[in-house]
């Protein structure tokens, strides 16, 4: 079981359903925090502050905005999307979600579905927060103030790869600014200040 807290966004216009849903799921042993959003656009505003793992969403909010939905899915590839189903939706819509549940499902089944998705996702969740050797090398140059391009040249890798490493470093350390990464690198002895 994953001991880390998951932030779950719930996008469901019916307040009664929302309150009932989270009251039921909150009683599980898992560490979930729930946030209510009016639409999936708000995820963008919120995501910088807290990472959202799962979004429970009413497919009715998606079906007329398929392009926007595709865009946001692409922008946040780690978010898992679960459809809250209480009326008929076309299969082509349901396919867009990682999973779905019926509001008439047993609570334990709903919790199981959420948790199963969470644990499938652990692989790219950087649970231990340890940087790989390559990431340390990348951080070494970034913290010294080299650009992505210069870092790529030094390590003989593509800029794209540097970017990926950079993103992973930020995720693992929870530090996003260059100044903050430099402090991290100094404190871990990755670079030294002369």
């Amino acid at each position, binding site marked *: 079981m994953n001991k880390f807290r998951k932030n779950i*966004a719930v996008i469901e216009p019916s307040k009664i359903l929302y*309150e009932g849903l*989270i009251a039921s799921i909150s009683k599980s042993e898992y560490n979930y*925090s*729930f*946030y*209510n*959003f*009016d639409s999936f656009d*708000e995820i963008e*505003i*919120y995501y*910088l*502050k807290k990472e959202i793992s799962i979004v429970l969403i009413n497919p009715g909010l998606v079906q007329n905005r398929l392009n926007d939905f595709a865009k946001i899915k692409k922008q946040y590839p780690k978010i898992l999307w679960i459809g809250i189903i209480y009326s008929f939706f076309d299969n082509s819509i349901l396919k867009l979600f990682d999973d779905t549940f019926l509001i008439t499902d047993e609570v334990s089944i709903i919790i199981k579905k959420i948790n199963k998705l969470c644990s499938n996702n652990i692989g790219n969740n950087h649970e231990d*927060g340890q940087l790989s050797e390559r990431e340390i090398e990348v951080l070494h140059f970034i913290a010294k103030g080299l650009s992505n391009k210069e870092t790529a040249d030094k390590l003989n890798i593509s800029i794209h790869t540097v970017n990926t490493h950079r993103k992973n470093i930020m995720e693992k*350390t*929870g*530090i*996003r*600014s260059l*100044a*903050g990464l*430099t*402090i*991290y690198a*100094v*404190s*871990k002895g990755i670079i030294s*200040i002369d």
Partner: protein
Amino acid sequence: MYKTQKSYITKDKKMLDLINDNYSLLLCLQHFDIDFSVDNKTVEELCFENNIDINVFIVISNLYNGFFPVENEINKINNITPILQFLKKSHSFYIEDMYPELKYYLGKIKNVHSSIDFQLIEQFFNEYFEEVLEHLKYEEEIAFPYFYSLMRNEKNKQTKSFSAKEYKSHHTDIETKLTDLKNLFLKHIKIKSDLSIKRKFLNTLFGLEFDLKIHSVVEEKLLIPLIERIENELNE
């Protein structure tokens, strides 16, 4: 977005109950310049007494309770002055309360822990606050005067114009660095110091983060759309 425990603020609720429910509302009252001795008054009575637009108060105070405004609440607001007054008061709070307080605690920690790590954190903090001050200066010198000129129905005569995009990117930077500071303290750097002082420092930092979050929601969700509406009306 909201967490679900706190009560939703309406005009007929007693302020005293609301404060007992969530004492962060004291900070909200301070930003509206409302005294804390609220007696038995309702939200409506307090707003009336202090000459505050009740729609603005309800939307903003609900943010302190974790309720995100819905569209028809936002649409009810048609006066930017109370929003600007609220923002201005929050600015003084950041500059006069938060900043000196954090600096004071960092100074205390420095007395016992003066390693290179800590010097860097202090430098990071100073640069961070430099940025915050710059943003506040931008708001007060560029953005706010522009908004007021809009209220007076004047077309934009300024040379350096206000940009909503620039406004938003400032917020993102400010919030990112604050999170970094928290994470450096909580996850990465072992700083030898009195626990009590470190806790006070972090407490203040969390308090600042909470208020800054509300600050940017007020600006981005209430103020900017309202400004855009006024701009469109003027252009018609």
